[in-house]
């Protein structure tokens, strides 16, 4: 099952297009990182997935074939928007009660236990909690709904390092216990590998790179060798980024790993951060949805 699937998804606000022709097929059971610079369209994409905005063109479905924003999808998808909006004038206890009453599925005991563990006092007004505590509360409420998909819009942006750690630890522990899918957006690339196993890179409203992080890392290499041979060598591969010095050049290439390197050339692994930055720097570089999605693979196997 694809937890999020888009086909030609495009979204326009008045005159500007926030998203252009996005095609995604995100498999279920992953922790997906959606990265890109500010203004890339990450929030728009997430809002389309949770039904807060409707596509101008194309389609988007979640959890298989549910329309994004349909009542069935709303039941099973939990969302924490940027800045974790909550009713500030309510007490924590009332906020939990509101959430419980707005959903047919809600684990009150789990929510209370988590809040106790987080030491968030139930009688305090939400507005009086720290930023980190508010984010934790919003997350606790989302998790208590028992979602099949958890969507987080820049959850760590305004949190201090300790709050960040605690927040993601809560998410990871919940996934370990219940096995749902997660999509979170971030404009910080470092430390992504720790949490995510699937990556979507968005820039200027277009999908530049998408795929399993393991696959992405094995299919890209940095080749280094003499500068004068770099053009020739580069023709054998899909080059994402070239960096030249006087006598020495480095090529970041996409490769299946089967071709032989000429002598004098070395190949090295590339880090995720390096890879993402390279793609972001070159708007024309885009990674086609790489290895077949599991269901497609089955279909093509069966067809043989």
């Amino acid at each position: 099952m694809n937890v999020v699937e888009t086909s030609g998804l495009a979204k326009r606000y008045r005159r500007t297009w926030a998203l252009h022709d996005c095609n995604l097929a995100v498999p279920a059971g992953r922790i997906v990182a959606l990265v890109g610079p500010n203004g890339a369209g990450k929030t728009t994409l997430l809002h389309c997935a949770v039904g807060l905005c409707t596509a101008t063109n194309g389609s988007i479905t979640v959890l298989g074939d549910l329309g994004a924003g349909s009542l069935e999808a709303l039941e099973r998808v939990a969302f924490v928007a940027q800045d974790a909006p909550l009713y500030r004038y309510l007490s924590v206890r009332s906020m939990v009660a509101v959430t419980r009453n707005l959903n047919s599925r809600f684990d009150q005991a789990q929510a209370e236990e988590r809040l106790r563990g987080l030491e968030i006092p139930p009688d305090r007004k939400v507005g009086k909690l720290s930023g980190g505590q508010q984010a934790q509360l919003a997350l606790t409420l989302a998790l208590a709904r028992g979602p099949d998909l958890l969507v987080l819009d820049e959850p760590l942006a305004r949190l201090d390092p300790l709050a960040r750690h605690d927040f993601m630890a809560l998410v990871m522990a919940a996934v370990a216990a219940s096995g749902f899918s997660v999509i979170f957006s971030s404009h910080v690339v470092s430390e992504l590998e720790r949490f995510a196993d699937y990556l979507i890179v968005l820039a200027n409203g277009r999908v530049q790179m998408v795929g399993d992080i393991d696959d992405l890392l094995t299919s890209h290499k940095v080749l280094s060798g003499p500068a004068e041979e770099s053009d020739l060598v580069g023709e054998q591969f899909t080059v994402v980024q070239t960096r030249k010095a006087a006598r020495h050049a480095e090529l970041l290439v996409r490769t299946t790993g089967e071709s032989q390197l000429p002598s004098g050339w070395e190949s090295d692994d590339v880090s995720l951060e390096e890879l993402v930055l390279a793609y972001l720097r070159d708007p024309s570089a885009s990674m086609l949805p790489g290895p077949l999605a599991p269901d497609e693979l089955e279909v093509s196997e069966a067809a043989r």
Partner: protein
Amino acid sequence: MRIDKEVCESEAPVPSMVFRLEPRSGVPTYLQLVHQVEHALRLGYLVHGDQLPRVKDVVASLSINPNTVLKAYRDLEQKGLTIGRPGQGTFIAASPETVGLEQLTSLRRSLASGWLKQAADAGLDEQGTIALFMAALRDFRDSPVESRPARRDGRQRRVGAA
């Protein structure tokens, strides 16, 4: 450290293992976990029958993707170091040759006073020493005399290694 068989409900059991991550080391996370378990086994901090911490406890303390922990545990199981019992957890199954603390200390001393001193006298700096050592280690591993099973390394084999 052994885990007590009877643990009070109100007390959290003492974990058999604490993990540490070095995010910038270049070594994939799951491999770091694997190495740490192997290291602990070698030093005798983990013994046959110990239960490795539950996935969700590792995840909660380290704040990492659960799949990473699962991958590490699978890796250990494939190497025969652990065995997973459904519904119960992952347990240490083998006791590889533990290199005792004494032996480690004497190996370290002999390396420092022997080979390292020679390399320094030859004029090699730190980086040069490391590079040379790694190359020699690789040679040692690849040599046909090596009877140990080839380990799957986190890094890909170099394309067209010279």
